[in-house]
């Protein structure tokens, strides 16, 4: 190549197409474009739009008016506490129940029937579970009848149209979700590690405490986050099974009402943003503490 003729050199250098291909961009890479555009248009753009809109109050006022209103109106800001009061206990309970069950089920040879039954409430969805629980947990439902027959209670317990109705529905859809996630983490650990611990003198509790727990903590943290986020966004069951104007007025109800009943999209977006930030805050806090734990392959290390 003639070094004195740079123009010719460029002409004979790699074409744009070749240079792009060297960086991994070619016709195959372009296949990702339609899906990416869709996600940008229907996910990123609405989020950005909502974010901006939340600073343009419908009723006028300065750019922070929506947020100021939210945090000064007890009817609005209390929704955060009410939602947390539902989501945190339910998520902790689900995780607490899921762990021992997952450790037991891991020993089963045929897990499929159990996992299939547990997938039912997730598949059927919250609306159907709400309708079912309205009957089942109601004053004349089978649940109260059974308790009364056994003489455990004399009056039917009030289990629907209050906190406990929503709690029960979050338990019945949330437990299988938490359990199946936990199970996939638990079965991902090499059983030889437990055997090694046993031959070294660790009893069942010590094996859990010193081998399984440290290896599972990151998985538990992720499970907690995903389960919490699901519970925090509770919506239909809070309306149908709870007191949507009172104790179970969760944040998603407030957001939906603002946007689609008062047609104040600006306020609705502001509440949705607040909801997102609370979820993000808890997730970041949990995942940050995850940095304290071992993260890496949970099998016996191989060379």
């Amino acid at each position: 190549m003639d070094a004195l003729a740079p123009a010719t050199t460029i002409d004979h250098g790699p074409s744009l197409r070749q240079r792009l291909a060297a960086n991994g961009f070619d016709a195959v890479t372009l296949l990702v474009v339609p899906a990416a555009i869709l996600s940008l248009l229907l996910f990123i753009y609405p989020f950005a739009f909502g974010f901006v809109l939340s600073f343009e109050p419908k009723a006028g006022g300065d750019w922070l008016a929506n947020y100021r209103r939210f945090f000064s109106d007890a009817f609005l800001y209390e929704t955060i506490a009410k939602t947390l009061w539902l989501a945190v206990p339910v998520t902790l309970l689900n995780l607490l129940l899921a762990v021992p069950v997952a450790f037991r089920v891991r020993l089963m040879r045929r897990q499929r029937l159990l996992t299939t039954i547990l997938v039912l409430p997730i598949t059927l969805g919250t609306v159907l579970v709400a309708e079912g629980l309205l009957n089942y947990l109601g004053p004349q439902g089978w649940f109260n009848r059974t308790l009364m027959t056994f003489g455990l209670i004399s009056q039917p317990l009030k289990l629907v149209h209050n906190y406990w109705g929503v709690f029960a529905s979050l338990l019945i859809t949330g437990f299988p979700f938490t359990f199946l996630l936990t199970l996939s983490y638990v079965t991902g650990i090499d059983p030889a590690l437990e055997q090694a611990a046993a031959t070294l003198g660790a009893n069942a509790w010590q094996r859990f405490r010193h081998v399984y727990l440290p290896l599972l903590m990151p998985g538990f943290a992720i499970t907690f986050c995903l389960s919490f986020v699901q519970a925090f966004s509770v919506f239909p069951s809070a309306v149908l099974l709870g007191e949507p104007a009172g104790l179970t007025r969760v944040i998603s109800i407030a957001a939906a009402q603002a946007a689609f009943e008062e047609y104040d999209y600006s306020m609705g977006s502001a509440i949705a943003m607040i909801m997102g930030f609370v979820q993000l805050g808890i997730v970041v806090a949990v995942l940050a503490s995850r940095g304290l734990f071992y993260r890496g392959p949970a099998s016996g290390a191989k060379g």
Partner: protein
Amino acid sequence: MTIALSQFDEVRLDRVSRDFGALNALRDISLTIRRREFIALLGPSGCGKSTTLNCIAGLLPVTGGAIWLDKSRVDTLRPEERGFGMVFQNYALFPHLNVRQNIGFGLKMRGTPKAEMDRKVNEALALVRLQGQENKLPGQLSGGQQQRVAIARAIVIEPPLVLMDEPLSNLDAKLRLEMRAEIRRIHNELGATTIYVTHDQDEALSLADRIVVLRDGVVRQVGTPKELYEAPAHLDVADFMGFRNKLKGKVVAVENGRAVLDVEGARISGVARERLSPGSSAYAAIRPDDLEVGEAGPNAIAVTVDTIEYRGREFVGTAHSAGGFDFVFRSHQAVEPGSTVYLRADDGRVLVFAEPTQGRN
């Protein structure tokens, strides 16, 4: 040396059986392991050698028989109560604990005081020559180093018995030879008692004081490496010990521990290793080393050479006989593929076995 392994006289397996699942089945395994012995359990995959080891460790319950450590019965104890040290095939190092914590795990479970624990872990580190690596996680170690951690972790608890489940199978060939010597050195330095599971007869022959050959969940032969190598008791043990040429024939005569077979019209005589009766079918087993290319005559059979490979000091050839038996032989001179030669063996180097009964054996 203060790592002092618990003293005892013998470990006795008394008709140990395990019935779950066809592949895992063990039948009446009886075996006595004396103190300071290095025992290799040898056999093809699925023969029950790992199952035996897991039963001794307590990781699998036995369904019949008993395991005794001197006068105390251990098969009813949970694995954590037995106190045996075990080295796993993939090492099973705790990935979240560093080398020091991995080695100290068993001591910690026993509530050993910190100072004593540190001292013992340091000694174990020195024994496996891993000083300076104690703060690394298993993922940062090479295969050979992980192997050393696994061994240190098993011996630091001063077990009466060290169990090793194919510990070298994940290493490359060079490292395998090196670690083989290491394992024997550590065994000797500690005066340990070791049960070592392997499917590699080279490993078993070079490491063990005694070898137990298992097949289909049954003990086929127990003996020193020399006994097994020179006098395998059954055809399948011989096969495992490198008797690669097996010729089927009819027993013509049996006399003074010698048997003469008729193989495709040729007379092959050898040492009878099993009870044989004239007229029955039997196998003559010969190592490739013991075959020589020669003239027609006694103990020789005509074969057609298929391939001949140059191996430096000698040639390795394959051939087949008119009756379809395949041969592997060594030769000092090249023979032409396609040519017909006679392969002959000393009758002292030919072993004759009864035809295995169909089915389980």
